[in-house]
């Protein structure tokens, strides 16, 4: 099932045990030092602000979904993000806990352990995710006393998007549909108001899938609905991980063969990016996508 404690987790705990009295001795009440995050997006933003979390939920799968920035060695694993391990959490003696509305049910218990800040990027009110991620980044920067770094990070990100936009403007790129396959018949297609949708528009591309989805920014569809994408030039971006049997099964499917995406060069499988992430995940997706479009132009 799941690997238990990682070696780096153990090392980190050992290191933490040594460092802890020193930190308490310093008694810097102003900026929190031992921050834990229940959310990948918040944790990776924290890294971009120059801070490392002490622990992150679902640390084990970081390399599968977030990939970059890499999780520094020694960050402890809090267990699964919807059932973080409170024994680990209390043992770490955090001074700030970062969480999202997704974990609202845990908030009272988290608050009993340490000051807890909730940042909502994916919330039921809806609205475009990218601006909400920028706002959450500002909020987080303020909460950890790194406002300057936060603004620099946002500027860096926007500049990167502009750069991608300029690179892509030369290519006259086709509209793109982005999806993850659930099985050979069904896929999760990314659309408004989601992160990937916002990124694509920000860097001057068009999402070929126009109906809006849930506030998470996706819709689950049967693959035959891809026929609704009218533009014959549209290309399909499939995000990893792809279940093993999907591509072979599609190759045999007459329906799939009839879709314009079955033509050579109209389907690309790209490495995983976190679809429910924040700025780092947006940047990673934008970079992978732009590189790919340039290479295949």
């Amino acid at each position, binding site marked *: 099932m799941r690997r238990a*404690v990682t070696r780096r987790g153990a090392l980190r705990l050992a290191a933490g045990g040594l460092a802890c009295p020193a930190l308490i001795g310093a008694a810097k009440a102003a900026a929190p030092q031992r921050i834990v995050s229940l959310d990948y997006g918040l944790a990776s933003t924290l890294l971009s602000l120059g801070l490392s979390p002490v622990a992150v939920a679902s640390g084990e799968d970081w390399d599968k979904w977030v990939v970059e920035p890499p999780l520094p060695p020694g960050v402890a694993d809090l267990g699964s993000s919807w*059932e973080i391990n409170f024994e680990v959490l209390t043992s770490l003696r955090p001074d700030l806990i970062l969480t999202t509305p997704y974990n609202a049910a845990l908030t*009272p218990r988290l608050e009993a352990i340490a000051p807890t800040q909730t940042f909502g990027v994916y919330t039921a009110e809806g609205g475009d995710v990218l601006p909400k991620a920028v706002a959450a980044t500002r909020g987080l920067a303020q909460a950890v006393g790194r406002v300057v770094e936060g603004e620099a990070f946002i500027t860096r990100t926007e500049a990167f998007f502009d750069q991608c936009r300029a690179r892509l403007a030369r290519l006259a790129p086709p509209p793109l549909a982005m999806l993850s396959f659930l099985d050979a018949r069904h896929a999760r297609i990314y659309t408004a108001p989601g992160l990937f949708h916002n990124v694509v528009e920000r860097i001057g591309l068009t999402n070929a899938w126009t109906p809006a989805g849930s506030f998470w920014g996706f819709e689950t*569809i049967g693959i035959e609905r891809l026929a609704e994408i009218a533009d014959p030039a549209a290309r399909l971006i499939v995000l990893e991980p792809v279940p093993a049997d999907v591509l072979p099964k599609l190759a045999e499917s007459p329906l799939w063969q009839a879709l314009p995406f079955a033509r050579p060069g109209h389907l690309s499988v790209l490495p995983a990016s976190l679809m429910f992430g924040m700025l780092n995940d947006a940047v990673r997706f934008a970079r992978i996508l732009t590189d790919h479009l340039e290479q295949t132009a």
Partner: protein
Amino acid sequence: MRDASRAAGRRQAETAAQAPDAAARAHLVPALVAGVLMALGLILAWQQAAPVLAAARPAPDAVTAMASTLFFFSTLPRMATALLAGACLALSGALFQMVLRNPLASPTTLGISAGANLALVAATLFVPGLLGFGRDLVALAGSLVAAGLVFLMGARHQFSPFSLVMSGLVVSLWCGALAAVLTLLNDRYLLGLFIWGAGSLSQQSWTIPLSLAPKLALALVLVGLLLRPLVLNELGEAGARALGLRTAELRLAAIAVAVALAAFVTSAVGVIGFIGLVAPTIARLCGARRPGAQLLWSTLIGAALLFLTDTVLMTIAGRFADFLPTGAVTAVFGSPLLLLLLPRLKTRHRVMQAPAPGKAGAAGRRLDSARLLRLLLPAALLVLLLALVIGRSPDLGLRLMPADLAGDLLSLRLPRILAAFAAGMMLAAAGTILQRLTGNEMASPEVLGISAGATLGVAAALFLIAAPGLVLQLGFSALGAFAVLAAIFLVSARSGLQPERVLLAGIALSAMADAVIGAIGAAGDPRLVFLLRWMSGSTYGVTMEGAALALIAALVLLFLTGLCRRWLDLLPLGAAAAGAIGVPLRPARLCLMALAGLLSAAATMSVGPLSFVGLMAPHLARQLGLTRAAPQLLAACLFGGMLMVAADWIGRSAVYPYEIPAGLVSALIGAPFLIVLMRRR
């Protein structure tokens, strides 16, 4: 044998010839019903087909061309699949009902489909290579194990219709929940549809209908060969034997065909609930009573019924049809039929089995029970203490609680351990009550449907309120539990609260709840994760107040149960005997059922709807020779508490810092336990 069977066949034919009107009528009404269902389906199907067929050819533009491809390679094979799957399931159900003489038998109610599905899910997750080797074989293996288990349990009750269906539905619930939980534990973001998509008829090529068709054809040929012996078998066991029919072999053959049919369908499209129950029932109600007519018309009605359901779904839900798995929809509409069929089922109150022979006499046993209880109490305390102080250390090892963290760890572990213990005790007590009340050893709180009601309540909370807190979740789950309890009482009040009826009503309601949750969950909302977590039965969310409340509830309810011990002693003697001794049957049953309901609702709050502790603990107690109500109840409670605490500890420690829910752990323990138990004696 052949001559005899021919003679009997001739006799049958003569009787039929003497009443040609009756024979014609036996085919007329079912034909009419099948025809009407089919016609309705065709009208709806035509609405989908007409625009495509009317379109100019060659297609003027890409969209029209795609619409046509979509129709020929998605819609049309989907319709074919619906027809074939419906036919297979209905034929399978009709065979089961005929051979088992059980109007409630079907691939769904016997757990066959769920077993196949669990095998497929497990294979997908753990040995994906196996699926390439043979998806059908995996499904077949799963359904055979499920069928074997159910029949093993049924055999102990001489295949009484009630106990067979009860075992079947327990197996079905267990397999369904386990499949969902396995998927849940496996992946983080890509789960939604994978679980609930089971039962979706959506197609993208002719592969599936083309592979189902020859299997159905083969099954039809086999059934054709079996038809004559089946007709003879209808004469009754003794009559058939007298004619030289080998009834056991016949049954085995028919059941093998039925199991294979259900497995093939599950392998092709997932679980399609209740078609195998509904279609043969309709056929019978229409007057198709003789084996030939029943098999024929069940098959055709099943095909038409699933076809119609699916075309209605495609018409109403349009593009969302894909995500409302047809299998879940048929279950939502099919499961109430179980409730309607209940009064038609002959139930039979079994007298509780006498204690195993060769044990000490009554006096010796009482002495034993006192000594046993004196041993069990310290054992329980020891388990509690160990679970409290031993935990995982960050470097993988086990360790005693370190002194500097003692306060924190205690406040984290104590509520969970106490809640687990309280829940285990309550489930054990509920199980003891239900088993004594019904004389059925498969009776357990899971089966009452109360847990399913609680799950529905939490589902409602999650989908009505954006982010319900723990208190709200608990409130909603209590509401759901009591709603189901009330419904069960209303439905079974007419039968004088006959325990079998109550339990079956509960099972029908839990099947319905499962189906509704499946349909709700089809959208693939990430909130579903919470629901599935909850269903898997973790003590994770328990607070100290919650644990105290659970403990108080447990003590109060157990005290009340203790007051009813005389009834519990006497009711297993059978309704008539108990009534003669002066047990007020209706009030006693009402009281005990209310107690069982409250006990399971309270337990479900902390360990979820599926733990099987309520099944295991009373058995353990009885296995030790505790046959009187009070000692059995006490010992069962202690066993239940210990089991749950142990399950909780394993769940917290096995994959630290991740967790396996306690309910799931104990269900995993419970399944093999059940098998071992059923093989003994």
